[in-house]
């Protein structure tokens, strides 16, 4: 078993606090994987945007160099879960059911952004579209679609 994972409900408490303060970075900071690949809340406007700053540890193709496709997927999946946390009523971490990811361009070794669109949120399942880009939002490097199970509290 993992040793010191954060104490149970520490995350839920942080989620509640973030609802009050609007400081969602505090939640991101509690997710070890988000910290590992460097995800940060970039903009909390009408469309929350996340940033993953350039990081040589995220490279998957050292020849180009390009970001590992799995890391781009990781950024997009995590962004979708965070987006749901920010916009839905429940504070439980949504569970991913499935994920379909289309790579459009190589992810260069530079800052990468992601934002989401919730197309449908039912009582149990949410459908979320995610776009990732680097220099121009109109020229995404990847687009994805994910279903999440909304965990009942």
């Amino acid at each position, binding site marked *: 078993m993992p*040793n010191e*994972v954060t104490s149970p409900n520490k995350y839920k408490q942080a989620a509640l606090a973030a609802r009050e303060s609007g400081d969602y970075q505090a939640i991101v900071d509690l997710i*070890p994987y988000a910290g590992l690949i460097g995800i940060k809340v970039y903009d909390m406007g009408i469309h929350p945007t996340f940033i993953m700053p350039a990081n040589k540890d995220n490279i998957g193709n050292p020849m180009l160099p390009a970001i*590992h496709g799995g890391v781009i*997927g*990781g950024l997009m999946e995590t962004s979708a879960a965070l987006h749901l946390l920010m916009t839905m009523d429940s504070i439980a971490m949504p569970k991913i*059911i499935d994920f379909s990811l289309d*790579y459009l361009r*190589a992810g260069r070794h530079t800052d990468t952004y992601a934002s989401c669109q919730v197309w449908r949120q039912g009582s149990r399942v949410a459908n979320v579209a995610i776009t990732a880009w680097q220099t121009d939002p109109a020229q995404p490097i990847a687009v994805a679609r994910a279903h999440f199970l909304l965990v009942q509290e």
Partner: protein
Amino acid sequence: MNDNWTEQARRFVSVLPHCRLLDMSVELASATELHMRLPYSDALIGNPDNGVLAGGCLTTLMDTSCGTAVFVALECNEVCPTLDLRVDYMRSATPGKDIIAVARVIRITASVVFTRCDLYEDTTAAEADVAKLEDDSDKAPKLVATCTAAFMRIGQHLDRSKANAK
């Protein structure tokens, strides 16, 4: 021959910085299958309340396993970028367990290579024996996720002169 495939796969993965960060390793590679291991690590947790691994590191494991299977399956060591990836998550991985990926190349065409990959929780040899003896499917390796991925052949070669010399 088998060792040669595994050796090739290991060399390919060993130069990928993010795979080194995750400590991913090739267990074996053959003409039909490639097995990789992702060790459980607290740094890869996606849900801090229960210690379950983030989907992202599993996506990375599947993308790498399929991509490496493609690399060793093609002659001349072509590097093929991922065109798309579709993942179904069957169950949350048990916290503390390593994840084993089993990737297969399904079909190679002139432009595209089709692959599949399954992720299992690692089962120790002892656990596997008990499951077999007792014929207990609950104790068999648990399927965590499945994936299908397609790769583009763009004709980019690694070390072409060396590959041709073989």
